[in-house]
C-alpha cells in the first residue's frame, strides 16, 4: 500500500457531509478545509491528496484521471455521460430532480419550453414521455423562468421544496432520486486497485453501519 490517491471533493453544500463521511471512514481532512482558499491539500500521513472542485466539475477531473476518485452528485452523472466507475452510493445530500411550474398551467401547445441546468436529463425525460419540448439552458435561479414567462416548466433539483413554495411553483413530476456517489477513474481503478479497494471498503463499512 504505497500509491497516493488523489480525491476530488465537491466544494460548497455537499462538502461538509462528504468530509464527515470521510472522517468516519478514517480519513480526517481537518475542520477548516473549506474555509481555506487552497485548492489542493496534502495529507501525507494518510497518503492522500485532496483537491477542491466545483461539484459539477468533479466528474470531469475523475474521468480525465486528474483525480483517482471523487464524490459527485448523481444529477451530474446523469447529465454528463462520462466514463467513470460509480462504485458506491454514499447516500449523502439526498434530493431529487423534478419537473415544476406555475400551478394549473398546461404546457404550451405551440412549443413547450423547459428551463433547466440539466438539458440532457430534461430532454431524455420528456422524450420518454413522448413530449416534444425545447430546452432553455440556465445556470441558476431556474425558478424565475416560469414566473416571468420564459419557460412553461423547469427541471431542477428539489431538496426541501421551499424555494418552489416561496415562489408559488408546484412540482409536477419527479424524475429521479439523487444522492452523492463515490466515483473512480477507470485506469486508477486498475492501477491503484488495492488502495482504492481499501478506501471503498472503509466507506462502505460506514454506509452499512459497521464503522
Amino acid at each position: 500500500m504505497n500509491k497516493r490517491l488523489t480525491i476530488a471533493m465537491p466544494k460548497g453544500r455537499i462538502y461538509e457531509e462528504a468530509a464527515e463521511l470521510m472522517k468516519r471512514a478514517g480519513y480526517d481532512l481537518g475542520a477548516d478545509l473549506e474555509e481555506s482558499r487552497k485548492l489542493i491539500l496534502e495529507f501525507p500521513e494518510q497518503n492522500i491528496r485532496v483537491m477542491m472542485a466545483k461539484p459539477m466539475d468533479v466528474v470531469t477531473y475523475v474521468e480525465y484521471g486528474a483525480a483517482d476518485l471523487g464524490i459527485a452528485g448523481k444529477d451530474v452523472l446523469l447529465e454528463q455521460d462520462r466514463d467513470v466507475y460509480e462504485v458506491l452510493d454514499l447516500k449523502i445530500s439526498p434530493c431529487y430532480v423534478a419537473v415544476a411550474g406555475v400551478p394549473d398551467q398546461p404546457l404550451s401547445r405551440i412549443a413547450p419550453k423547459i428551463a433547466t441546468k440539466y438539458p440532457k436529463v430534461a430532454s431524455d425525460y420528456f422524450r420518454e414521455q413522448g413530449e416534444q419540448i425545447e430546452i432553455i439552458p440556465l445556470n441558476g435561479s431556474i425558478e424565475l423562468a416560469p414566473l416571468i414567462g420564459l419557460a412553461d416548466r423547469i427541471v431542477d433539483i428539489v431538496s426541501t421544496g421551499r424555494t418552489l413554495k416561496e415562489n408559488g411553483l408546484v412540482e409536477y413530476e419527479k424524475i429521479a432520486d439523487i444522492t452523492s456517489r463515490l466515483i473512480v477513474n477507470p485506469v486508477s481503478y486498475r492501477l491503484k486497485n488495492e488502495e482504492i479497494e481499501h478506501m471503498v471498503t472503509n466507506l462502505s463499512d460506514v454506509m452499512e453501519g459497521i464503522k
Partner: protein
Amino acid sequence: MVKRLMFEKPLGMRDTLPFFYNQKSKARRQLSEAILSYGYSFMDTPLMEYHDTVGKVSATLDQQLFKLLDQQGHTLVLRPDMTAPIARVAASQLKNGEFPLRLAYDGPVFRAQQAEGGKPAQFEQVGTELIGDHSSYGDAEVIALLVDSLKQTGLDNFVITVGHIGYVKAFFSDLLGDDEETMETLLHYLYRKNYVGFRECVKSLSISGDKKQALLELLSLRGGEEIFEASRSLARNQSCMQAVNELKQLYRLLKVNGVEDYIQFDLNLISHMEYYTGILFEGYAPNLGALLCNGGRYDTLLPSFELNASATGFAVHLERLVEALNDFEDQDERIGIIVDDDSYAKGKRKADEYRKEGRAVLLQHVDQIPDLPAFYSQLANTIDFTQVGGGQDE
C-alpha cells in the same frame, strides 16, 4: 458564420509535430518488430468503406461514425477500426489462405467524439488479428504478444485486465433463467461501470435472497488467480464451468509465456455490449486517464461476412502509448554542413559520405541562415565549409 482563422482544423483533429512523429515512429517500429517476430503479416485496407458492410458490423457506435456519400449516393464511412475491414478481407480475398490467419495492421482510424479535449477523432491503431483459432492457445498468444510488444517499447508498469463475457452471460442465465430483459439491464450496468445501479437493480428483483447474494458477489470477482475458486463456487451451470476452465487454462498458458505479472482478472469487465464473445481484455498505463489498448475474442463478426471462423486480436492506441512512454528527450543525431557558393561542391561530397554511413545530414547555404548560433545549437555536429568559417573540416 464566423470567419475561420487560417490555422484552424476540424474538431478532434490533431497535427503531429516532428518531436511527436519521431517518437510515434519509434514506438510503431518497436511494436511491429514484436508482432512480426510472432509470424504475423502486416496488411492495409482503404480508409473508406461502405456503411452497409463494415460500418454496420464494426464495434463502434453508429453515432460515432464519420459518414459521407460517394458519387452514386452510397453512404460511406471512414473506417472506425481495423478489425471489421480485416474481417472483410479475411472472409473474401484470404478465405482460401492458410488458416489460422495471423494478420497485423497499423493505421489511422476515425471516430467522431465529443467536442471535448483529449478525445481525438483520428488516431492510430497498431494491432493484430488471429483468425481461425478458437483455442485458449490463441487467446494466450494474443495477450502474450500484446505484453511483449508493449515491453518492446520500453513500457513496463502497465496492467492487462482480463474478463470473460461468456462467464457473465452464463452466470446471469443460471440465476435469472430466461429473463432476458433483466440480463440485458444488468449487463448494461456493468458496461456503464455503474455498480450502484447494478446493486439497486439486483435488490429490486423478485428472486430468492441466495440468488441476489450470488449476483452481488459477481462484483467482487476481481483480482488474481484466487478468483477462479470463487467464481467456480458461484457458477453452477455447464457454461459457467466451461468459462472458468477457459480462464484457468488461459492463466496457465500466460504463465508459460512468462507474462502473468502483467495480468489481472475482472469478471465484470464488459468492454462492449455485443461485440465480444469470450475472453476480452483492456490494458492500462500510468499517467493516462484512458485505455491504452484492448481486445478479445469475437466470434460473430466473421460469420457476418459469411466466413465461419472464430477470431481474437488486440489494438494499441499508438498516440496514447507515446504519451505513456513520455520520452521526448531523444538526441538530435543530425549533422549540419554549412556552405557558401564556393564550397557547395565540397560540402555536397562530404554530406554524401556521411549519408552513405547512414547519418542524417543537412546541407545549408550560409546566406539563408537567419541565426547562426541557433542553427548550430539544434544539431549534434556542425561542419562549416565557408570562407568565414575558415573552410575548416570539423
